[in-house]
């Protein structure tokens, strides 16, 4: 029962709300049905399928609030979760920041579900693995390790004040690391799509293979400040520098004085130019290349929103409580982000570079200082020295200490945006990127 239709989801949500004895009740129901395959050492390792659902109940009496989550969707199981949320709410102290549930809302539509992805079988997944393994075995000097997952998901919510929403989606996640058997080269590729028709395992796998071959026998360069070309996979990941920047744009943190957006005396940088004027970043759940959910989990509509325009901070995101207190629109955190770029390919960017470093990927990125949004991490899976418009040789990996705020002030050029984790981002040429030490890792 993992993927419920709108009618089935509505029935369960209404059932949950019908059990409520609280002043207000909100229910979120979600489910996933997915299959995955993992491979390493040029052979398939683990794989499996998963289906699960989860029902979250939030109940409130006055300003007391409690939540319970369950995956037991029998009538008795649902009622137990509702009773438990109510029990917790009655036991909790009043929360002065409690905000009443939203009433009925209107949402945009976006197409996030594709049959082509839903129809993927275990045999299809095994073929994806083979698309990486077979050419590596044929080469004889390469080893593939990869992961492919296809998923169907649904999200639904309803509350006792009239808000109701449902969205079904499908997605593919693919990533592959190819390493040279001499241990000196490594390449990587990441792809994500909603529609399986837009995914080509052979083409994608070749990127990791090429990078692995090109990155063999790297030479050390001195750490220091370099002009770098950052590929999209170096900018966006679960921990990417652009993700960190966007999801640090919380209004309350800024207003409270504990954000890179805070200023002396309790003011913020909202409305100020903080970045190079070529930096424009917005979110749009209806963008055809990166469609996203059109509502947030508390029922707020997701709309096209400008976050940074021509280098100026245009919007911050708010909790509903903080927006009410500040008397502004409660803009939710974005469901995707799109950074504008140009038409240049990565090859074009290299051609225009006298001396620099091409970075395929940045990894293990962690915050060092929230005041300046300073992050550290390392290059991985293909780092190359550029001289006079050409890749001269691969270089050993380097640790960086850099702030995305400084990085977005030092832009030299932007390339053509590519999809990365449901976002669109251009490759970027940046001057004075700070590398602080060398790593022996390949």
């Amino acid at each position, binding site marked *: 029962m993992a993927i419920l239709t709108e009618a089935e989801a509505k029935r369960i949500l209404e059932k949950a709300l019908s059990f409520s004895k609280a002043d207000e009740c909100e229910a979120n129901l979600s489910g996933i049905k997915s299959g995955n395959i993992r491979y390493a050492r040029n052979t398939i390792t683990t794989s499996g399928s*998963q289906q699960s659902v989860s029902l979250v109940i939030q109940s409130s009496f006055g300003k007391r609030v409690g939540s319970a*989550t369950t995956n037991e969707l029998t009538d008795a199981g649902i009622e137990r979760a509702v009773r438990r949320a109510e029990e917790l709410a009655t036991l909790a102290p009043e*929360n002065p920041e409690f905000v009443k549930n939203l009433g009925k809302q209107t949402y945009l539509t976006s197409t996030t579900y594709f049959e082509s992805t839903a129809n993927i079988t275990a045999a299809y997944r095994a073929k994806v693995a083979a698309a990486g393994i077979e050419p590596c075995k044929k080469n004889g000097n390469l080893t593939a390790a990869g992961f492919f997952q296809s998923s169907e998901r649904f999200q639904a919510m309803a509350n006792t004040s009239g808000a109701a929403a449902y969205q079904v989606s499908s997605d593919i996640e693919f990533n592959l690391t190819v390493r040279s058997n001499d241990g000196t080269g490594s390449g990587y590729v990441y792809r994500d799509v909603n529609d399986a028709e837009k995914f080509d395992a052979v083409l994608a796998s070749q990127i990791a293979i090429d990078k692995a071959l090109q990155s063999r026998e790297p030479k050390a360069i001195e750490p220091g400040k370099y002009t770098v070309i950052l590929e999209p996979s170096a900018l966006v990941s679960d921990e990417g520098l652009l993700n960190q920047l966007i999801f640090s744009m919380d209004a309350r943190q800024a207003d409270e004085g504990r954000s890179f957006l805070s200023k002396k005396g309790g003011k913020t940088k909202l409305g100020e130019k903080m970045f190079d004027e070529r930096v424009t970043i917005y979110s749009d759940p209806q963008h055809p290349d990166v469609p996203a959910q059109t509502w947030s989990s508390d029922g707020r509509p997701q709309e096209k929103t400008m976050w940074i325009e021509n280098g100026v901070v245009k919007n911050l995101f708010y909790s509903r409580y903080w927006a009410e207190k500040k008397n502004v629109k409660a803009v939710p955190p974005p469901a995707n982000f799109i950074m504008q770029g140009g038409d240049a390919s990565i090859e074009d960017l290299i051609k225009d570079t006298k001396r620099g470093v091409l970075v395929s990927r940045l990894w293990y990125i962690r915050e060092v200082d929230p005041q300046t949004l300073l992050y550290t991490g390392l290059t991985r899976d293909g780092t190359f020295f550029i001289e006079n418009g050409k890749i001269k040789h691969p270089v050993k990996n380097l640790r960086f200490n850099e702030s995305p705020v400084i990085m977005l002030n030092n832009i030299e050029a932007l390339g053509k945006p590519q999809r990365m984790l449901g976002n669109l981002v251009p490759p970027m040429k940046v001057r004075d990127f700070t590398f602080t030490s060398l790593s022996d890792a390949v």
Partner: protein
Amino acid sequence: MHRRDFLKLTGLGLGAMMLPTVGVVHPASLDAAVMDTADKKKLADIALNAANAKGATYCDVRIGRYLNQYVFARENKVQNVVDTLSMGVGIRVIANGTWGFASTDDLSPDSVAKAAAEAVAIANANAVYQTEPVKLAPQQGVGEQTWKTPIEKNAFNIPIKDKADLLLAANAAAMKNGATYINSVLFFVNEQKYFASSDGSYIDQDIHRIWPTFQATVIDSKSGKFQNRQSLSAPMGMGYEYLDGKASEKMKGETTVYRNSYDMIEDAANAGKEGKRKLTAKSVAAGKYDLVLDPSHLWLTIHESVGHPTELDRVLGYEANYAGTSFATLEKWKSKSFKYGSPIVTLFADKLQPHSLGAVGYDDEGVPTKRWDLIKDGILVNYQAIRDQVQLIDQQESHGCCYAQSWADVQFQRMPNVSLAAGSKPLTPMDMIKDVEKGIYIIGDGSYSIDQQRYNFQFGGQLFYEIKNGKIVGMLKDVAYQSNTQEFWNSCVAICDERDYRLGGSFFDGKGQPGQVSAVSHGSATARFNGVTVINTDRKI
């Protein structure tokens, strides 16, 4: 690791809708959802038989019921109280020499048999491309067994009011002592796991964990500067008794640190004072320093630079696409002479240590747990391996460190507790500091990052004290140290004795695809490392 995400979550005070779906529930409200052991055995046998009938040569079944509870507070407000419950079954098989796995939350006999058949079908589909047929180390069935975390107070039975009062008292203490803001959280976990395998094991385990934590922020609005100070607690394999704040478990020095009992209110008060002090602390001069690292800090360095590189699946390349590989290669291990650290460094793995997060009776493939050395007197001597790996290092017995984060995920090799053995000669942290000419004493964990083969790392911390000529002369800020794993552990020149030994750890060690988290502890006494590179992290934007 996903610890940062957790802290961000709690720091931002987001509510229940943002929480992981594998969660928490109160036993009193959920009695009806509990299956008795006889019913679990019946259901497990259905899966074992179905897999066998479809041609599986091995099968294991995990029926799980996972409960979590979170209480969130900021300043003088409790923001939310959340219970979560997740139940289901995961079935793993070997067919045609290949692994297959399927899970379902529908615990009807038909659904369980169907999942077993699906696991076999997946194994068969993949067998076409299999070149390394699975070889399992033998494991005698252990029959019917039970194991329970030895807790004194079940956190799920403590009234919500007591938990809310504790957080509000801690927050008030922080604010009274200088904090501008504070986010605090109590996090309780109970894994009820039933394991059965075609080897003849039926194991019922009841595992408890607890983690009280907070982040206090002090802001100087005049300068626009702010500093955070996080709690010095550890996540523990304990019940609510961890929060008793016993005086006998406190160690007072520059601040107060805690052994197996935590005083959240005292720590919050210290956080207010120390956060304020951090604002006016001296910015560090970059250079080489001797580091004196408290266990509340050193656990994370052990985790990243010893725990991960000695995972055999990383060494062999199974994690190459995600967590990475390892510099601690088989040739280095086979040489029996690879100097991982100085001769005083012994790092051991264990799944037994009382109060630790990793302690269980049996791992998630039914192997009894144990303790073994990884680095002995500075030399790399072993790895962490499970049933399908030990034959690759010519060993016959699994180390018993297989784990899955839930019934829905497949089990695989996960880090056991990995700890630095305490020094054999009597030595306290204050005695250690007396010998340091130019150094930094670091307490609490902060920023952390290491490369995919575990050579180059960078760590921050919570509290930094400058040591000059054997004396602490003041507080520092903007400190991070960078080193190389082998250089770092070979620069270890002194380790305090058993009296100073404490556990640190995390609920959120991340590995695998799809990603899974695992809870793990790391014990140590305060240790000294000579001549480590320190950088200054201050920037202007």
